[in-house]
């Protein structure tokens, strides 16, 4: 077979449909304030934040091989950054949101260097201890109101409609950066290195992949993405407190979404987030019983189908929305 007559396919039919569709949906989000009821807008904002946070957890665990049960550390850090920048530096909160990734990044770097000395499962609990440490420090910090939490007063200078526009634009950008960014990353040469590292770190290292540096980078990037989502989430809430911002339940959400949706693929967390979202809307009223079911589902998935719902769907039909692999085809077999 003459090499120059070989094609490399990066897209499939399914992705040629899915990606433009996704972009349309993304562009539609900032239009919501003009035609959708406020209640639904709030739901979309919440869902966007869940998807973003889950994608970051997926990047950490599915590609970096680092399971974290402490991402709430960065949700709280991002949220409090925003509130602090707005209250103390007088910044316009909408402009302050992108700056809210700084503190999570600054915290993440030394955190990783510390935590990487711990073995797999102990690494996970270590991330939780870190989150608890942040929570306790914040709880004792009078400058941010300690346990009572902070309010985003600056939002009062905007009308509800203006707030909605700002938030929906930020959500669209959030999804673009986290989902889109992950997609582009995984399709790049860096992404190839990441996948190699995920599959076999030792072999990857022997091929020149700097595993340590990569893990460090992933940890910090995931912290930034998570912090960004946290800032937007709490901006919509208008209030933040140590108990809510650093709530371990955030980790339960991440883990359920990614494990049930499907780890290691971009599509998985999206499916998982939708599932979690609607399930909570419908069954959340049952309180603790519903959470028992969530926990059991997570456990069952981990035991019997670690690749989640998307993994099952993928085995039936390989129709990726966001394909990251290369397929080699001979030109005469390409279908039109």
């Amino acid at each position, binding site marked *: 077979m003459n090499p120059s007559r070989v094609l490399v396919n990066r897209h499939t039919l399914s992705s040629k449909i899915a990606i433009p569709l996704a972009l349309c949906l993304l562009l539609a989000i900032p239009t919501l304030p003009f035609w959708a009821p406020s209640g639904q807008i709030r739901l979309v904002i919440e869902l966007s934040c869940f998807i973003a946070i889950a994608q970051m957890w997926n990047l950490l*665990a599915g590609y970096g091989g680092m*399971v974290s*049960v402490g991402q709430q550390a960065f949700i709280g850090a991002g949220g409090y950054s925003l509130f602090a920048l707005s209250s103390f530096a007088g910044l316009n909160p909408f402009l302050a949101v992108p700056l809210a990734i700084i503190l999570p990044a600054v915290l993440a770097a030394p955190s990783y260097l*510390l*935590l990487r*000395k*711990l*073995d*797999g*499962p*102990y690494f*996970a*609990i*270590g991330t*939780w*201890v870190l989150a*608890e*440490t942040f929570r*306790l*420090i914040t*709880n*004792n910090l009078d400058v941010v109101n300690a346990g009572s939490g902070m309010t985003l007063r600056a939002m009062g200078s905007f009308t509800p409609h203006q707030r909605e526009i700002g938030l929906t634009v930020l959500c669209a950008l959030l999804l673009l950066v986290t989902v889109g960014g992950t997609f582009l990353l995984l399709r790049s040469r860096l992404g190839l290195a990441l996948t190699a590292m995920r599959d076999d770190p030792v072999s990857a290292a022997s091929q020149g992949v700097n595993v340590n540096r990569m893990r460090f980078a992933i940890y910090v990037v995931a912290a930034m993405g998570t912090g960004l989502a946290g800032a937007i989430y709490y901006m919509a809430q208008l209030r933040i407190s140590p108990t809510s911002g650093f709530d*371990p339940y955030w*980790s*339960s959400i991440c*883990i*359920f979404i990614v*494990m049930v949706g499907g780890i290691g693929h971009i599509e998985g967390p999206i499916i998982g987030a939708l599932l979690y979202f609607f399930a909570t809307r419908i069954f959340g009223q049952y*309180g*603790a*019983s519903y*959470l*028992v*079911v*969530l*926990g*059991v*589902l*997570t*456990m*069952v*998935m*981990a*035991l019997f189908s*670690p690749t989640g719902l998307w993994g099952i769907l993928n085995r039936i039909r390989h129709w990726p929305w966001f394909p990251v692999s290369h397929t080699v085809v001979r030109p005469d077999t390409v279908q039109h």
Partner: protein
Amino acid sequence: MKWIDAIIQGLLLGGLYAQYAIGMSLMFGVMRIVNIAHGDLVVLLALIGISAAVAFGLGPGFVILLLVPVGALVGWVLQRGILNFVVGEDPLPSLIATFGLSLALQNFMLTIWSADTRSLNIGPLALQSVNVGGLHAGVLPIIIFAVAVGLTALLDIVLKSTRFGRGLRAAAADKDAAVLSGVDTKSIYAQATAVAVAILGIAAVFQAARTTVSPSDGGAQLIYAFEAVIIGGMGSIWGAFAGGLILGVAQVVGAYVNPSWGILIGHLVFLLVLIFRPQGLMARQ
């Protein structure tokens, strides 16, 4: 004198943390599994113990006698029913499975026992104290400490000198070779988890006796167990014991300095150990 009082209280509290930690150290050392529901199991056993004590008018001694076999059974079922499927190289499935279990267990306890805090009534024992040369110590904490020493020593002897202990260490060193020597790994792992959770049954009684218990306490207990194991050094039962003591001292002395800092100081000591001696204080390096 106050400082010494605080240190002694810390050591005695550490005895309880040691009881949490030795079971976790056993499970990780043998199976490389960390059970995220570890703390929730303590809470579950404590609540069962309290309910039984109230329903049948049992004293704390009887509650211990009840909870040890109950704990062993729970541990055995946990291993055979869930954890045996996730023993292996990849830590992700066991982490996530036990995480899901933790979430389910906490909320299950909430539905049965509600969020009310409860405690185990141990009568006058709760208030008795001894006075040695100007230093006060509660009788209950002393008992907890003594039991911790006893359990640690017992577990250490079991691991070093019994058929079960040898088989367990062999399975931890090389699973396939252990099978070739006749070790039934599935069964021995279940026995190990049964032992670990039986110990938690004892710890549960002490926790319920010395303070209140509620379904959402599990997370904190897990973190204390974990910090104790890391501070003391992985792979050593006496290390976990020592780590528990150090954590207890850190927390109590921290609270003595500032009442709202106790637990935070514990976390900071843990982080310091991670920075300067990550293999643990009792490790041989």
